């Protein structure tokens, strides 16, 4: 009996211990939020909601607004998705469905290796390799012939919103690629064979299988990539040009929320420091909103996908 009650005590202790650990996580999140809120109060009081719609960032006159940074973070991240999603989903389909076995392992290994490179290395590579290539081989010719489109308006310097988007895309490809591959691998072989046996081509098989089965998973992979892109700091600040301005042209410089915090935090004081913390709080809210929205869409997609089968 004694040993049995000892077992119960251990069970009880184990349950309480796990509950404690769970509450630590919760406590940390609340603490983080509370500290950000407290430190950003001076800026909140001074600027209020206008902080969200003001485009000035003047540390000398102490006038601060977050709009250019919000714009830069959102635009560079979505630009990255626009490039990375088709690329990585396409690559995932190729690796899983078409690639000869001897090619599968090296390609997926290299793709996953991309995820292990520190972001400052990406940034340096961006400055010395990606930006000059983009500038001379893409931006200059495009602005010469299509410069009348606001999206491609010059002058071309190199560091730009486009450079940030492309670099971010390269950084998030391994994440989207490897999750997409996992998702594609979950499709039952029999389902694929069923489509083929009904006279479907490979393309039809992939289209039906992905449409029916894999869309929620691929969407999830995309959100994972987006989360990484929104918070990326070092690589972005090294190629985006760090100019707090809103421009319709992808060839002009921008700035991101994470980048301005990293750049100015160390030497900031007073209202500038408080405004930087407020930007941090906003960044936290942006990621929270994106993740919640994604969860909502995902659960709807999952419901639809399971109804389809």
């Amino acid at each position: 009996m004694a040993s049995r009650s000892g077992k119960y005590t251990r069970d009880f202790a184990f349950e309480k211990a796990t509950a404690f650990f769970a509450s630590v996580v919760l406590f940390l999140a609340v603490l983080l939020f509370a500290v950000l809120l407290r430190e950003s109060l001076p800026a909140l009081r001074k600027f209020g909601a206008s902080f969200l719609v003001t485009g000035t960032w003047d540390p000398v006159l102490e006038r601060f607004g977050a709009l250019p940074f919000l714009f830069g973070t959102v635009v560079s991240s979505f630009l990255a998705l626009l490039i990375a999603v088709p690329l990585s989903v396409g690559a995932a389909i190729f690796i899983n469905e078409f690639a000869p076995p001897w090619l599968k392992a090296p390609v997926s290994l290299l793709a996953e290796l991309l995820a292990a490179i520190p972001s400052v290395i990406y940034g340096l590579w961006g400055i010395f390799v990606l930006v000059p290539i983009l500038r001379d081989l893409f931006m200059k010719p495009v602005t010469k012939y299509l410069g009348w489109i606001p999206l491609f308006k010059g002058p071309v310097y190199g560091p730009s919103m486009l450079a940030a988007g492309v670099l971010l895309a390269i950084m998030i490809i391994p994440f989207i690629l490897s999750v997409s591959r996992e998702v594609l691998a979950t499709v039952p072989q029999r389902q694929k064979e069923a489509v083929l046996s009904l006279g479907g081509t490979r393309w039809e098989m992939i289209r039906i299988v992905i449409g029916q089965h894999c869309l929620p998973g691929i969407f999830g992979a995309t959100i994972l990539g987006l989360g990484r892109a929104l918070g990326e700091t070092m690589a972005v600040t090294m190629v985006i040009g760090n100019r707090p301005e809103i421009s319709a042209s992808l060839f002009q410089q921008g700035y991101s929320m994470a980048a301005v915090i990293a750049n100015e935090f160390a030497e900031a004081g007073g209202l500038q420091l408080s405004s930087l913390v407020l930007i941090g709080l906003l960044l936290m809210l942006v990621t929270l909103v994106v993740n919640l929205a994604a969860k909502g869409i995902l659960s709807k997609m999952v419901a639809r996908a399971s109804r389809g089968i």
Partner: protein
Amino acid sequence: MRRISGILAGTAVALVLSLAVVNGATAADPLMINGAGATFPYPLYSKWFYEYSNANPGVKFNYQSIGSGGGIKQITAGTVNFGATDAPMTDEELKKTPGPIIHIPTALGAVVPVYNLDGAAEGLKLTPDVLAGIYLGKITRWNDPKIAELNKTVTMPNADIVVAHRSDGSGTTDIFTNYLTTVNTEWRAKVGRGKAVNWPIGIGGKGNEGVAGVVKQTPGAIGYVELAYAKQNRMKVASLRNREGHFVTPTLEATSAAAAGVAKSMPADFRVSLVDAPGKESWPISGLTWILVYKDQKDEARGKAMVQFLKWAIRDGQKMEAALDYAALPIAVVEKVDQALKRISFKGKSLY
């Protein structure tokens, strides 16, 4: 069982031994002096601490190069024995400290315009107004008549000027914008001076290396970096017309000359700007870097060691500056600093 007790006994012996070792170390432990602040003088200070500790094994230094703003915060909070900064403390900042602070100049730095221009050799000539015009976005092409007439021997290319500046808050930006504010009224009205400002145009690079990266990678770019950084990376530097109308190439001698130029009028607290300094040879975008110490030291031994170190730094230490691309303090300034060191005291008694 026996084995376990054997292990325990062994551990106990080891523990006692290690405690003895630790105790022994404490007895001969050197006096540790903690400092924090500016990144600009960090290579110089590291060298100083190393050399000084070799000669005086009783003193060791621990310096965190967290930035000038951080150095001021730490010395204000009293968490370090000394702070270090490239921008002197403001009156407001001085009010927040628990006791009077003494600024000790230790070295001189210069900020230099660097550029990337095919065909144009070293020593592009610029005037204060042209430099301000470029950074205000009013002079946008290299063949602008205002630049061309200064550089008649060179054919200036018909190319865009790409302006680069620091994106991070820094003492380098403070000196550079202080210079533009001093020499150009439009800059003063529109932008002003600070560690970070609202730049009218340009691309931001993080750190000296970020600005240098933009300049090196972008044809037609102009930026500003510390003299030491430009020298070590062999970048093309512009010469600038100084207050007395001479075009000066940025060198360590020209930087020291700027300090010599203001030595006579240097205030007792050394919080002085060297930008646009008088003197024929003076490089106009120069600045001091300071160590911050409390006038009234709380710990006699540490205070004494600190003063002895500073006495050494402004004499023997100055000889190490040139090798690391810092400009040495001119003799006239060293003498004034020496007087200031005598004011550092413990309970009213000078530690000099």
